[in-house]
């Protein structure tokens, strides 16, 4: 069997001492920032990106992936213990998790969250192994028209998750696409949007954009509504869930895993959407919905499994098609490009060590998190008492040294400041940075495929609608857009965010 050989290859890569070390390091850093509110996985990955240059690409990706799923674990810990969601994907866990903690049942809630997450992580890993090669083979047959339509679908999906208005999210994508075009055009050698500045001839560095938008802009906006937080710490006593807890939650774990795995693959999906959808589902099918919000264990088990499954399967489109489905995946894609790997279906064929090593490491990382995190809960909770005013100067420092060390360029730092200021203003105007980053990554690729498709069709625009796969993807994009405009969904979106 092919898949077994692949898995063995994955294990040999993931189990080298250095990769194990970086996997653990990433997972721990992820948990740490998951615990700390105001520092998200996207910002952290952006911060650590420049410092991964001197390790092999697979090691870098293993660490960055660890940050992402580690943050899911950390986020749920603080949701349950102190009612502060460290990450937006664990907002719903607060509802029943914190209610359980107040009843003195924090231990079982944490244990169920961890076990559910681990189960979901295992299932999602198997799903990636089964689905990714098929999808990758299919994608190898794609022509430029299919690629272009797929990117349109990916970008439309990204608008689903943005807060606020759809029009603004689309405008942010377009702005990102334009920023992505800055630099020398590959086809003609024309220098575009450089305004005569020689540093811009090679384009704007990806790290500069994300450091400004995710790092600096978020610091400024966190300081803007800085307030003192009272943190009540709950004592954790007795981790083991009772027999009835297990009986009540195992079905919710399975449902959450399935839901999360499916939603994670879809464009715009991922951890956040999965957890909300799972909570809604559990509440709908429960025999007594009134228990939800006052300590129903299904309300912890379902969403926590779903967000972990969603976090894992959102790697599928990124790894096989080169299409990011959310902001963090856009950063992972950027990391691959920085390491000289062209994302797309060829990655699996040309760099099987990277592909399978990363997947196995995600499973290993999840295992480490379960084993390590439950005993470490006390430390994580104490970290919550570190005030933000000690934290953010350190983040500013990491930003500065990270940006500077890219090209030893002062201009890059000035540009990052500019992106920070623009990003802050846009945040104030309810425009989120994630769609912009997606556009920025996909911009140059989109233009290339658009041009190629038009050359092949001799300038006929209908090519996007006459190819069946391309048509399907454009239709799916149109349906997503219509769903967003539809009053029911819009109402739900406002409710959720």
């Amino acid at each position, binding site marked *: 069997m092919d898949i077994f050989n692949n898995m063995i290859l994955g294990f040999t890569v993931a189990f080298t001492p250095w990769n194990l070390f970086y996997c653990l390091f990433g997972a721990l850093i992820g948990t740490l920032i998951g615990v700390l509110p105001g520092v998200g996985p996207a910002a952290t990955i952006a911060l650590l990106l420049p410092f991964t240059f001197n390790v092999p690409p697979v090691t870098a990706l293993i660490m960055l992936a660890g940050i992402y799923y580690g943050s899911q674990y950390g986020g749920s810990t603080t949701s349950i213990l102190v009612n502060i969601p460290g990450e937006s994907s664990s907002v719903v866990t607060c509802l029943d998790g914190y209610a359980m903690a107040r009843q003195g049942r924090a231990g079982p809630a944490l244990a169920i969250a961890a076990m559910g997450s681990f189960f979901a992580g295992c299932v999602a890993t198997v799903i990636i192994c089964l689905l990714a090669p098929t999808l990758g083979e299919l994608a190898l047959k794609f022509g430029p028209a299919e690629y272009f339509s797929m990117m349109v679908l990916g970008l439309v999906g990204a608008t689903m998750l943005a807060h606020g208005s759809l029009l*603004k999210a689309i405008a942010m994508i*377009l*702005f990102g696409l334009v920023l992505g075009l800055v630099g020398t055009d590959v086809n003609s050698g*024309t220098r*575009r949007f450089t305004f005569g500045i020689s540093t811009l001839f090679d384009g704007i560095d990806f790290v500069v954009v994300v450091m400004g938008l995710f790092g600096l802009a978020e610091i400024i906006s966190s300081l803007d509504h800085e307030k003192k937080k009272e943190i009540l710490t709950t004592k954790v006593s007795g981790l083991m869930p009772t027999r009835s807890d297990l009986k009540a939650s195992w079905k919710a774990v399975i449902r959450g895993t399935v839901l999360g795995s499916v939603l994670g693959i879809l464009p715009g999906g991922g951890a956040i959407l999965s957890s909300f959808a799972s909570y809604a589902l559990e509440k709908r099918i429960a025999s007594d919905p009134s228990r939800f919000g006052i300590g129903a264990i299904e309300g912890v088990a379902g969403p926590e499994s779903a967000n972990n499954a969603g976090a894992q399967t959102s790697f599928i489109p990124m790894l096989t098609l080169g299409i990011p489905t959310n902001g963090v995946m856009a950063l992972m894609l950027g990391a691959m490009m920085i390491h000289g790997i062209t994302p797309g279906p060829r990655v699996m064929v040309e760099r099987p060590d990277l592909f399978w090593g990363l997947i196995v490491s995600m499973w290993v990382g999840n295992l480490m998190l379960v084993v390590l995190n439950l005993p470490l809960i006390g430390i994580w909770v104490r970290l919550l008492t570190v005030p933000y005013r000690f934290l953010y100067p350190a983040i500013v420092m990491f930003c500065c040294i990270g940006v*500077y060390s890219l090209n030893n360029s002062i201009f890059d730092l000035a540009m990052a400041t500019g992106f920070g200021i623009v990003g802050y203003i*846009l945040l104030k105007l309810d425009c989120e940075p994630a769609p912009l980053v997606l556009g920025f990554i996909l911009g140059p690729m989109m233009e290339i495929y658009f041009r190629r498709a*038009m050359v092949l069709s001799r*300038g006929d625009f209908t090519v996007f609608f006459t190819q069946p796969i391309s048509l399907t993807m454009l239709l799916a994009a149109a349906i997503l857009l219509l769903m967003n405009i539809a009053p029911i969904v819009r109402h739900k979106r406002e409710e959720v965010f």
Partner: protein
Amino acid sequence: MRIRIRNGKDFYAGLFFFFIGIVTVLEARAYSIGTARSMGPGYFPILLGYLLLMIGGGTAVRGLWLKGKGIKISSIRPLLMVSGAVLSFAFLLKPCGLILALLALVFISCLGSREFRIRYAVILFFVLAAIATVLFVYVLGLPLPLFWSK
């Protein structure tokens, strides 16, 4: 009749994107556009520029129409201090070295918080300077001068 901005967030966001659209279109007009069959470097950007103009304009007009929340900025101090911290780091790094640049970075960025205490800033500076020296200069070997060089 006076025009009232009912939704400041939409209105100004719309204006911003409209402006970006104008810049994009004006700049891209200088590049050759080509035909649909063989596109020049200006084709795709102009397309994006016009889309931005439309969506930006639409959002701005909607901001005049539909009610919504205005923009609330309690203080511009964080904005000034954080960007000031990064810029002063940038300009001090080469002439004065990492340590002095970090001194400016830590103090100016600490001023961004309303709970600024000089004692905390001093402690933070020593901690961060030690971390940066050990981690970035010695472990990662980044070519950062610790102090000014002649």
